[in-house]
């Protein structure tokens, strides 16, 4: 079951940005959507999230087509997007409903998962970029989404923080086993995290290739297998540049 896309396309003012995307995910799978800028990866993710409903085709969760935002879908944006007037813990419970005390207990657990149990009373401006993104991760996970969408979540962070958060994401994923859909333009990140990489190419973006990564976790960053796959992916992406030049 999980998430299924059938022939999803999206155009803006007559110009098609993503075209005819079909894919389905297995529960607990980590799927990477990789592509150069302009290939429509984020557009696709916004369609799945329900933030953007003007797409063609069908998106369904566990067989039911979705209309609008879905409570089983969580979203982590490129920026933390914390509400600056709320403290860390208030930000985490933002999407929860119900008894305040229970919400706080639950939020604390997730803050602990991301290593920020001591920061619950800080305001977003007092956090570093990496800490803020951890809070955003906790906020997205606290509602127990079955499917977590990540839109280049670590692209604004420095290399070290990025690696830490990638490991953190894997750790949390092992605990909660959500399906992750990760949009990225970072080949190494996709190789390190994903079970399957879908390469979007062209304008409008179409699925150019799907690459399964069998290697077990924890993976070695820069292992031979991954290096080999990376070469293959880069080759596949460079073709696009050629064709752009030719046009």
């Amino acid at each position, binding site marked *: 079951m999980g998430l299924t896309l059938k022939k999803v396309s999206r155009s803006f003012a007559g110009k098609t940005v993503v075209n005819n995307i079909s894919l389905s995910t297995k529960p607990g799978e980590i799927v990477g959507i990789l592509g150069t800028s302009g290939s429509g990866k984020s557009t696709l993710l916004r369609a799945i999230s329900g*933030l953007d409903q003007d797409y063609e085709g069908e998106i369904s969760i566990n067989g039911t087509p979705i209309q609008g935002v879905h409570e089983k879908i969580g979203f982590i944006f490129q920026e933390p997007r914390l*509400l600056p007037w709320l403290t860390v813990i208030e930000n985490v419970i933002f999407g929860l409903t119900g008894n305040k005390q229970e919400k706080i207990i639950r939020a604390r657990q997730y803050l602990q998962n991301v290593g920020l149990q001591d920061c619950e009373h800080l305001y977003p401006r007092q956090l570093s970029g990496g800490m803020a993104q951890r809070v955003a991760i906790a906020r997205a996970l606290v509602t127990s989404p079955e499917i977590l969408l990540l839109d280049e979540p670590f692209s604004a962070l420095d290399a070290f923080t990025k690696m830490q958060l990638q490991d953190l994401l894997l750790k949390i994923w092992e605990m909660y086993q959500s399906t992750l859909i990760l949009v990225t333009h970072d080949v190494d990140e996709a190789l390190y995290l994903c079970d399957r990489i879908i390469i979007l190419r062209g304008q409008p973006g179409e699925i150019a290739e799907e690459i399964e990564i069998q290697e077990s976790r924890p993976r070695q960053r820069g292992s031979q297998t991954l290096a080999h796959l990376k070469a293959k992916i880069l080759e596949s992406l460079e073709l696009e540049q050629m064709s752009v030049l030719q046009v």
Partner: protein
Amino acid sequence: MAKQEIEVSNVFVTEQKSVRKKTKKKQLPLSTIVLGSIVPGLIVVVWEILTRIGYFPAYQLPAPSTILITIYDMAVDGSLWGHIGLTTYRVFVGFVIGTLIAVLLGSFVGFNRNIEKFFDPMIQAFRAIPSLAWVPLFILWMGIGESSKITMIALGVFFPVYLNVVSGILNVDRQLIEVGRIYGLNTVQLVTRIILPAALPSFLVGIRSGLGLGWMFVVAAELMGASQGLGFLLVLGQNTLAPETILASIILFALIGKLSDWVLKIIEQRALHWQDGLANQERGGN
């Protein structure tokens, strides 16, 4: 002037106290205050001397001490409190009315593009009229009683508050609204949980400049005709050839205006403690 110097030296004292707590942060303001009070201090002293020796005729420019005595005498015979009270009351009522209307209309316009199309061009056109030009019309309609004065002040307060409410709402970060939508908030929840808090800084800027205009307009309103109030003191001083009364009134306006702005500033700091720059860092070590 002398009164202001007292105010400055009070600030000076409190600054000194806080310097002990936060040496790094407050050192600069301390020297700024010392440097900044040298020139006004000198002017007051020279002014006092020149008036005493008769260089300035006292019927045109009375000495700072004479002005202080004028204020003191009014305080003793009780008339001071009536003037201050009535003027403050007018500003307060006008401010509340102007702010309420501005918030209501501003929210409608900010939230609804169609209403914006109806109202905003008209409001912008009205804004182009210097507000004081309305004074004769208001007096014609409502007489020189309280209602024309309060309407005047409310009108002055209205524009800055309205403009800031509208721009505050229109400029709410779309990214934050998306966060709300991802969590399935409905329109009312989006407004109360995201748009209003996000628009609050702009609103507070609006009410502070609105209050400033309120004080400006109360002068205009009271100059037009009043039997009590600080603006009336201005007219009284002019008609009785008493420049010390005029200067006393000016100083009182400055003090009360500053005081009311200070109150709003404290409210602002309380409400926006989460913002960059405004806030203290003492929670950092938690």
